[in-house]
């Protein structure tokens, strides 16, 4: 099981802030993850429609979409940051 956490408008559109998911073996990169997530329902499709606007963090470190996911405890999906 992998914990998925969501923030800001990604969280609002999906409708939950976190969930535990069994990722299919075919999901090996962030790009794979986003494609698969979008098949899970209209809310996921709406939240993740613009791939380029989604940032991915694996175990609390940013990664590029094409980076291998490995075997993480926690994956976060969120919009571009607006800190500072």
């Amino acid at each position, binding site marked *: 099981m992998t914990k998925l956490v969501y923030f800001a408008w990604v969280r609002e559109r999906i409708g939950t802030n976190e969930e535990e998911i069994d990722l299919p073996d075919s999901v090996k990169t962030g790009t794979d993850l986003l494609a698969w997530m979008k098949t899970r329902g209209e809310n996921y499709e709406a939240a993740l429609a613009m791939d380029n606007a989604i940032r991915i963090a694996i175990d609390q470190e940013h990664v590029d979409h094409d980076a291998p996911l490995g075997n993480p405890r926690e994956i976060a999906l969120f919009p571009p940051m*607006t800190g500072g």
Partner: protein
Amino acid sequence: MAAVEPVVRVQADDFDIATENARLTEGRTDVGAVVTFTGLCRDEGGTLAALELEHYPGMAQAEIGRIAREAAERWPLTGLTVIHRHGKIAPGENIVLVVTASAHRQAAFEAANFLMDFLKTRAPFWKKEHRRDGTEGGWVEARDIDDKAAERWHKT
């Protein structure tokens, strides 16, 4: 000279600028420059009741720590403090504080500038507007100009 260990805090509470400033200079005679940057919540047009800053607990602290250590390795700093608030923040209130101390001003200015450019684009915080008329505003959008500002620090 070994890089200083930055002080990084992510908190809901406000901070005191004079206290944080003094922490980097008290009892020392090797500090020649302290740069203090404070980012405040700005109300554009009198419509904003508050900004709600959502953050990624854990990662916010870790990521600011990574950015701060990078600054401490790139410039000869004698001290470095970064404080970033989360939660509801009203116009006029503080959001973020960066204090850099060094023997000379150039390092202190540049490190503070670098830190702010990276906090804008890499620290996992998101701002949502709450309007005075009671309606929910939107999420503040990331700006290209901030990405460009951060890019100029990439070493070639």
